[in-house]
């Protein structure tokens, strides 16, 4: 099969909806099919990178653990919109995501073949 550069833009906070989790599952599957997938954490999805999430009492699985495991599945093109994270006070400094300023966003998005935004 051909190769396409795929970008997944996440925008929703974890736990309130399965949105971010289901978008990550698309990334994991595409990587398993040897595709190059980049992930951009934007808006409330920057909360996925927040330290010390513990969803045991709401009986959900940790989305942070899924994010932390992405490089092990060869998904290492991770980016965070720094303006969005800082505006929210997200403690993302330990995350593996590379910083991207919002002024660079449109050019970054334009260079990918397929862009899915969740």
């Amino acid at each position, binding site marked *: 099969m051909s190769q396409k550069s795929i970008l997944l833009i996440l925008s929703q906070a974890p*736990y*309130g909806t399965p949105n971010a989790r289901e978008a990550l599952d698309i990334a994991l599957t595409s990587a398993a099919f040897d595709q190059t997938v980049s992930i951009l954490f934007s808006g409330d999805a920057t909360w996925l990178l*927040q330290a010390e*999430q513990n*969803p*045991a*009492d709401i009986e*959900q699985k940790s989305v942070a653990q899924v994010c932390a495991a992405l490089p092990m599945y060869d998904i290492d093109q991770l980016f965070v919109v720094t303006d969005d994270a800082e505006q*929210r*006070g997200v403690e993302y400094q330990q995350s593996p995501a590379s910083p991207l300023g919002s002024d660079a966003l449109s050019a970054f998005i334009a260079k990918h073949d397929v862009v899915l935004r969740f």
Partner: protein
Amino acid sequence: MSTLHTLNKAPSNSSLWHDCQRALQAGDTLLLIENGVYGCADDTFTAQIIAADIKVYALRADLAARGITLSGDSGVAVASDDDFIRLSIENNKVISWF
């Protein structure tokens, strides 16, 4: 006569926060639940509400899930599920903003 308001969305849902805020009366209580607790990460959202004589709480299980800790001087209190019940009783009615 006072009201307990619950709010379950992050501040990025600015129209919901706006709608809720303009419905609050002095003496009311606001309980942030689910993604609403993201409103505690930055004191500016809650400070304005507290200044209008509204008590603000955030649900413990939802704070923990999201890794949000309250700064000591924010004026926001942590509520357990039992506190949620107690607040429902102490106020005369409950309005849910979602």
